[in-house]
């Protein structure tokens, strides 16, 4: 077969150059934000909540949520915690390096359905990144939404990502930060994110809740949201599972009959609770 027939190749990534790297969180749970620009006139549009398969050639691919707003057309941004082989390779990159990128994959948050609603975001750890495009979109289209509240927590103050952006956000939204344990100089809430949520107890009236974080945090947050009166179809989360293809084929991200890479990663609790708890 001639190579020309291989044109429509779902496994072949586009190329993008790293144009900016910012260290969000230092130390063992290090998070860096990478801004990339497509090469060769490439690119794609995405929705809030969608993901992309990023590669460092020679190290492999990893599914990462797109942390920039769909309204930013010039670049894509990804906040990546150093955890495994590929994410460690990302942390070793320098500005100017060229990576592979394919996508966008999965579904997005139904942001347009939420016009006129109060929005309550609850993030933990690097789980702020997947919901950050929604927060940015809500801020940019501020008149479309009513009250915006953002709960976010890190293990320690050093683990808080997007620190400057969160402070800036206070002008348009209520921002409730937390750290797991009291520490010197910390004036926000001390305790886990689900506890901070109960402490502030946002009203479920005309409200949508959007949460992402470690699996165990999501579990307690959803439980608390239901106790606060949020209906199951007004609670949204975005889940992650190990992925290799992002195309509904490689067989490892499934939760029951759903491949998270295709049917997810965004689920309402009304839909997610019908699936087995394999995430």
């Amino acid at each position, binding site marked *: *077969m*001639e*190579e020309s*027939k*291989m044109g*429509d*190749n*779902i*496994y*072949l*990534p586009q*190329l993008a*150059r790293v144009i900016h790297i910012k260290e969000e969180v230092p130390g063992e749970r290090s998070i860096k934000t990478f801004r990339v620009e497509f*090469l*060769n006139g490439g690119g794609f549009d995405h929705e809030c909540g969608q993901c992309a398969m990023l*590669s460092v*050639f*020679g*190290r*492999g*691919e990893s599914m990462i949520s797109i942390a920039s707003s769909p309204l930013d057309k010039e670049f894509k941004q990804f906040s990546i915690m150093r*955890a*495994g*082989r590929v*994410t460690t390779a990302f942390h070793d990159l*320098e500005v*100017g*390096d*060229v990576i*592979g990128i394919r996508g966008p994959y999965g579904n997005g948050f139904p942001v347009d359905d939420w016009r006129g609603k109060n929005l309550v975001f609850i993030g933990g750890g690097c789980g702020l990144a997947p919901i950050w495009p929604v927060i940015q979109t809500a801020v940019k289209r501020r008149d479309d939404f009513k009250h915006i509240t953002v709960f976010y927590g890190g293990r320690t103050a050093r683990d808080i990502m997007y620190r400057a952006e969160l402070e800036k956000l206070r002008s348009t939204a209520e921002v409730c930060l937390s750290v797991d344990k009291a520490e010197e100089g910390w004036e926000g809430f001390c305790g886990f994110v689900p506890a901070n949520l109960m402490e502030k107890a946002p009203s479920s009236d005309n409200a949508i809740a959007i949460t992402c974080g*470690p*699996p165990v945090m999501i579990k307690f947050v959803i439980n608390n949201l239901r106790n606060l009166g949020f209906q199951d179809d007004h609670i949204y989360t975005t889940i*992650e*599972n*190990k992925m*290799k*293809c992002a*195309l*509904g*084929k*490689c*067989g*490892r*991200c*499934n*939760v*029951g*009959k759903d491949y998270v890479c*295709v049917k997810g990663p965004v689920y309402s609790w009304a839909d997610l609770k019908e699936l*087995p708890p*394999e*995430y």
Partner: protein
Amino acid sequence: MERMLAKEQIGDWIRTLRGWEVFGPVLQDGVWSYQPADTVQLDHPNTAQPPKGFAFPQREVFFTFEQIKGEPPRLTPVAPKGGQQVVFGVRPCDARGLPRMDRVFTETFDDVYYRTRRGSLAYVGLACNQPPSPHCFCKSVGGSPVSTEGLDVLMTDLGDRYLVAAVTATGEKLMQAAGDLLTEPTGVDRSEAGRLRLAAITHPQRAVNDVASVPPRLKKGFDSSLWEDLARPCISCGICTFLCPTCHCFDINDETNGSTPLKGSRVRTWDSCQFPDFTMHSSGHNPRETLGSRLRQRVCHKFQYFHENFGMFQCVGCGRCVAGCPVGIDIIAVVNQVAASAGEG
């Protein structure tokens, strides 16, 4: 199109298939496998491995890359080797694996590697007059010893001759190449074939009980303690998925063979849901951490999830996973036990 072929002339037919690479079952060191063949003797029970590797090889290079740090890499897709391949002696159960893999690889996102290989592949099947294995259960999962699904040609062994029946247009072409080697069946040929087919279809087999009720019962039985009980002897070797005609899970990795400049290839290899790290996140969190959760995934994928998504079972009843399991985990027994327990109350 139905024709007759004298058994000793099968090699003559194969020699007429110009432009086709021909494979047939070969016994080597006690193991049956599909090998390139000038002629075939179709007296095999079934091959140790199904023929799924023709469309979906165990290892496949997607593309090679060459990159100098800070510069764009050169990516070169590696196209599957061209040329048409025809496999003789495929059992009807194994052939049914192919349309199931088609659903996975060509719907939603079209996999050019699979589609290319699949598009140049033909199966010439052999009906099972006798079940080739004591673990055959094709009839439980919508198949039969004479099923034509996934085949291009079905041959039936009539002792000294074959009844050769075209299933697809490709099959007709393969038969047309044979010219005068293939003759018109007589009334005796047809009635003998009919008798053998009936005997094959009515031959007793092991069975999945009330298979239509299995998907909802497995759903109900998700939390059953039977999963861990039945999976306890499992050693996570993955032979069940390796030998399965429908298992398609895979891994993608970069293999490097030079660092300055960086040189290497992105490679797809078969993988298995039975391996403990298959679903493990880099954080260490693992959604399918236990043996039971992984047995449940294999069984429910075949008998519930795939059925919910595509309206068909992702099991063709070849019995290889039963025969090949070193600790005797038996998918028929597992499905029957879990479904029965979920049916109570």
